[in-house]
C-alpha cells in the first residue's frame, strides 16, 4: 500500500508542479488589486499543496523504513480482480464510444457486455441480460429526451 501511497502523491505532485509552471503566465485583465499580484494566491495554494504532498511522501518513506507489509502486493491483488478490471475497461470504452456510436448503440453494447463479463451463470442469465439492457436504455432515453427535453449523443460514425 505504501509504494502506491507514494506513487499517488508523486502523481499529484507532478500535476501541482505543472500548474506551478503556469503561474507566471497569469495575467490580470482588471488590474484591480494593489496588494497582491494575480499569481500570489495560486502560488500560495500550490506551495501549500506541494509541501503537504512532500510530507506524505516522506511519511510513507519513513513508514516503509520501519518495515511493514509487502508494498506492491495489495496493488497487484487489486489489479488481479478480474471483475473490476472488466468493468473499468467496458466503462472506459463506453465513454470513448459514446460520441461516435451515439447513446443507444453504445449503451446497449456497454450494458450487455458488462453484464456478460460480470455475471456468474452466463447461459441462465442471457434473457434477463437482454431485458435489462433494452429496458434500461430505452427508459433512460425516453426520460431524458422526452421528459427532460434534453439531448443525448446520436449515431454519427457513418456521417449520420
Amino acid at each position, binding site marked *: 500500500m505504501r509504494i*502506491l*501511497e507514494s506513487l499517488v502523491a508523486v502523481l499529484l505532485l507532478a500535476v501541482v508542479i505543472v500548474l506551478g509552471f503556469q503561474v507566471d503566465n*497569469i495575467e490580470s485583465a482588471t488590474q484591480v488589486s494593489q496588494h497582491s499580484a494575480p499569481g500570489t494566491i495560486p502560488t500560495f*495554494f500550490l506551495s501549500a*499543496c506541494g509541501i*503537504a*504532498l512532500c510530507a506524505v511522501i516522506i511519511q510513507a518513506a519513513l513508514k516503509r523504513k520501519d518495515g511493514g507489509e509487502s508494498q506492491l502486493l495489495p496493488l497487484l491483488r487489486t489489479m488481479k480482480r478480474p471483475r473490476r478490471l472488466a*468493468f473499468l475497461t467496458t466503462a472506459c470504452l*463506453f465513454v470513448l464510444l459514446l460520441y461516435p456510436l451515439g447513446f443507444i448503440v453504445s449503451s446497449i453494447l456497454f450494458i450487455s457486455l*458488462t453484464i456478460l463479463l460480470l455475471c456468474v451463470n452466463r447461459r441462465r442469465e442471457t434473457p434477463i441480460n437482454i431485458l435489462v439492457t433494452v429496458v434500461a436504455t430505452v427508459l433512460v432515453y425516453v426520460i431524458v429526451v422526452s421528459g427532460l427535453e434534453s439531448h443525448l449523443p446520436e449515431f454519427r460514425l457513418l456521417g449520420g
Partner: protein
Amino acid sequence: MINYIAEALQILATNPALLALIAAGVASGLVIGSIPGLTSTMALALLVPLTFSMDFNVAIALLMGVYCGAISGGLVGAIVLNIPGTPSSAATCLDGYPMAAKGQLSRALGIGVYASIIGGALSGLALVFIAPALADFALTFGPWEYFAIIVCTFFTIASFSEGQTLKAIAVALFGVCISLIGYSSGVGESRFTFGISELEGGISVMPALIGAFALPQLLMDTDRIGEKVERVASRFVLRDFMRAFGEVVSRRWTLVRSSLIGIGIGILPGVGPGLSNILSYGRARAASKTPEKFGKGELPESIIAPEAANNASMGGALIPMLTLGIPGDASTLMLLGALTLHDIEPGPLLFLDNADSVAFIFVTFFIAFAFCAILYHFLIGLIIKVLAVPTQYIVPVIFMLCVVGSYVLNNRMFDVYCLLAFGMLGYLLRSAGYPILPMVLGLILGPMAEEQLRLALEYGQGSFEPFVTRPLSAAIIGLTLISVAIPIWRRFRHAASPELSENR
C-alpha cells in the same frame, strides 16, 4: 421566516404534483438506500444533473425526498442482509441482524424505522431554529472569518480521517489547486487552461463529484458478485412492525440523546451520519444498565441509538450547508451542487435574498420524513425483495445513468471525460488509502477560499495580521489548531505507552 414557511406550506397544499414528487423521491430513495453499495450520495449524484432543467421547487421536492429516503433506507440492508445499505447504518447491523435472525425481523425493522423518522424530525426542528440564527450571526463575518472557516473545515475532516490526517490535508489542497483552473473573477482572466477551450470555464464540479464518488464505489461493488449472502429467513408481519412504535417512544432518553449526538456530528463539516451512528451506539451502550446485552439483538435501544443519530445528522448537515455554504457531508455536497445549478448561492445572504427557497427546503424536509413514515408501511415488503437484485445488473445501469447525468448538464462530451478522469483518480486515491471527500470538498470550496483570501488581503492591505488580530477569526484558527493537535497528541501518547493503546 414563519411567513415564508406558511407560504411554502401553501405552495405544497395547492400543488399536489409537488407532494407526489416528494413521495416518489422518498420511495426511490428508500429502495436505492436499502441496496448495499448504493448510498444516498450516489442516489443524489444520479439525480442532481437531471434536475438541471426543472423548476427550483420541483427539483428540491425530488431531491429532498431522495435524500431523506436514501439515508433512512440503509437500515433495511443492515437488518435483512447484515450489510448496511449505506455507511450510516453500519452500527445498525450489530443488533438489527441478530434480532431479525431470532425471528423478530418485523420488530427490528419497526424499531429502526420509527427511530429514524423521529430522529430525522427532531433534526428538522434543529435546522429550523438553529440555521436562521447562525445565518444572522454569519452576517457579521468578514473574509478573514470565512477563510478561517474553510481552513477549519479542511482540518476538521482531516482530523476525523483516522490515520490519514496528512493525506486528507494534501488531497484537500489538491482539490483547491484543481479548482484554480479556469476563469477567475478576481483577476478577470482564465488561468491554467493549457490552451484547451473547454477548461476556460473551469472543471465542471458535478461530473467531477459524480465520478469521484460513483466509479470507485461501483468498482468495489463488483467484488460482491457471486458472494453468498446470509439472508434472514423470517417473514415480514406489518402488525409486529407497527407495534415497535411503542417500544421506540418508551425509550425517549435514548432517542433524544442519540438525536442530539446526530445533530452535533452533522453540523461538523465532512463527518456526517457515518460517524454519528457508531458514536451514538457506543454512548447508548455506555449508558445502559445491561451493556452485555448489546450486540445480541435483545435491546431495542441498540437499534434506536444508531438509527435516530444517523437521521438526525441530516438536519445537522444542512445547517452549515445553508448558512455558510459549507457542506456537512458528501450528500449535502451534492445538494450544494444542486442549489448552485439553480443559481441559489448558499450562505448567510441566502436567508435574506431567498428566504422563500430556504423555507421551502425546511418544509420539504419535514414532509419527506412524513412520507418516509407512510411509505415504509406499504413498501417495506417490496424493499426486502429488491435487495435480491443482482449487483451485475445494478453496476452498468448506474454507470450509464452517471454518464447521462454528466452529459445533460451542458450537452458536451468534455464533462463525460471529466467524470471518467475523476472516477479513475478517485479509485486510485481510494486504493492507496487516501480519503476522497476532502479532495471533492477542496474542489467545491476552492473558489470561495480564493475569493475570500483575495478580499482579506485587499482589505488588510496585503497583511495576514487580521487573521489573528480579529477575535472571531483568531478563535476559529485556535479551534482548528486544537482539532489537529488533539489527535496528534493522542497518537504520540499511545505510541509512548503501549498499554494505553491496548486499553483503547
